[in-house]
């Protein structure tokens, strides 16, 4: 499938996401008023600018960012089942937010999430150097998740009902709480990570050939590790704080790309995974908003798991030898 086609689908999804909703926006009237400088329907303008646009942009950029981070983790650990979530990085964010919300620390949630993500990522980085096998590293990450869940459970047992509710709702994940400013920060990060990945595409290609070989081909391992750790920590921290701990997008999006596209070089994969991530996140959020309109209110993470789990199972089932 052509990446350009997926890009057009993503733009279509973005357009529909903004255009459709519970309130019928009089689009002709609104656009006409904006163009001619006439009387703007304030309510409609506010809904578009402060509700739908931030939500759509946050969904699209978060999907792209998580897809890229998934690719990055899968390349770095040379393991098709690696992803920000599986490695316990997102749980680190949960721990940070749990500490901030449940213990009432005076730390903004995004900062708490970022610190938590970064701490776990650092632990994994240390572990990855110590354990040569990627499987060991994955188990390491998994154990961190368990330990973090345990701590979070302990914290929950003594938290106030109100704090508990805040934390549980945060854990369900949503694109709908993002402010315009937060949407713009996600977009800025998307540009940052996209540029970094394109710049490092060749190093990442080399990395797939093996750690030692890549180093003899000119990849400075320590620097690459540092860049990956800091970018992943920062971005996952911001995305997790804005949207909650999102499951499966990072892990599954690269595999959706690999299913539809033959090219495995990072330059192609970055573009393809970028648009697929945006499209999948918009579709998932579309489903969430549809259930909202039916008064069923499915959480985002439930929708992502329903969409993502079969993808992961399919990968395990049909373990191809060309995933990288």
């Amino acid at each position, binding site marked *: 499938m052509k990446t350009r086609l997926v890009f057009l689908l993503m733009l279509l999804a973005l357009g529909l996401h903004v255009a459709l909703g519970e309130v019928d926006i009089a689009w002709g009237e609104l656009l006409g008023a904006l163009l001619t400088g006439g009387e703007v329907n304030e309510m409609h303008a506010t809904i578009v600018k402060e509700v739908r646009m931030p939500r759509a942009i946050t969904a699209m950029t978060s999907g792209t960012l998580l897809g890229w981070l998934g690719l990055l983790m899968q390349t770095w650990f040379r393991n098709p089942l690696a992803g920000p979530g599986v490695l316990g990085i997102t749980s680190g964010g949960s721990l940070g937010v749990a500490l901030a919300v449940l213990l009432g620390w005076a730390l903004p949630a995004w900062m708490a999430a970022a610190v938590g993500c970064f701490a776990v990522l650092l632990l994994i980085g240390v572990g990855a150097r110590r354990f040569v096998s990627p499987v060991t590293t994955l188990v390491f990450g998994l154990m961190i998740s368990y330990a973090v869940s345990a701590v979070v459970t302990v914290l929950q047992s003594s938290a106030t009902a109100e704090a508990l509710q805040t934390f549980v709702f945060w854990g369900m994940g949503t694109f709908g709480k993002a402010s315009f400013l937060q949407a713009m920060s996600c977009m800025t990060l998307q540009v940052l990570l996209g540029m970094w990945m394109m710049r490092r595409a060749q190093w990442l290609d080399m990395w797939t*050939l093996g750690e030692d*070989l890549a*180093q*003899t*081909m000119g990849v*400075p391992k320590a620097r690459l590790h540092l860049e990956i750790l800091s970018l992943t920590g920062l971005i996952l921290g911001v995305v997790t704080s804005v949207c909650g701990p999102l499951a499966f997008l990072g892990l599954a999006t690269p595999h959706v790309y690999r299913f539809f596209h033959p090219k*495995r070089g990072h330059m192609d994969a970055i573009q393809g995974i970028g648009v697929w991530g945006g499209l999948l996140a918009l579709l998932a959020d579309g489903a969430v908003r549809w259930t909202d309109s039916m008064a069923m209110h499915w959480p985002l993470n439930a929708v992502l798991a329903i969409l993502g789990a079969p993808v992961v199972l399919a990968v395990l089932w049909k373990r191809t*030898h*060309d995933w*990288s």
Partner: protein
Amino acid sequence: MNLILNNVNVGHKHPLTGPLTMSFGAGGMHVVLGANGTGKTTLLRTVLGVQAPLAGHITLDEGAGSLNANDHRAWEKHVAFVPSMPPKDVGLTVAEVLSLSGPWQEAVSHHPQLGPWLNQRLSTLSDGQAQQVMVARAMLQSNHWLMLDEPTAFLDVRGQRHLWGMLTAHLNRSGSVMMATHDLRGVHRWMQEAPADVLEVSSIHVLSSSGLSPLASDASLDALEVALG
């Protein structure tokens, strides 16, 4: 460009061998034999600059000046690596893998057998085919030194023949080769067929805890087997 070891100790924390002082002549085939665990791979990794020596210096002499192995940027242009096992699960095509180190067309002109595989993923090739791609890639990266770690370990007889053929071609273009191996038969056959001028700068050493001890480059197969213990 001779490869020079000056009082080099290799190992992780503790030196695996006594200090190595040695010059490996440019244009030659330098074979390092040694039992498992003597540190052949560690020596190669150190010479490649992946791992720092515990002591001493590793340099390439280049006309007036010399290059140090810790100068990674310059080192990678003159010293390329072929690991024992071709990498697994690589979705890149053969052409893409070659392109990481230079124009693939050049590799195909030197090794026409790669031509039909160009658009195949590396992961779909046999070990023998993949190893040829890895050698061709290393030769694109460096015209000078190729470092090979047990390159024939996973190859059948035909694959081994192809590999020795490619290495001979590299030496004929005045490249140099350093190889850690157990492939005594391959080494022996190569020695018997190698041109005299290449043989003259070539060497066979046995690595042990006391250091590198040289063997005559016309050693018999029996002598090689005895030396390897």
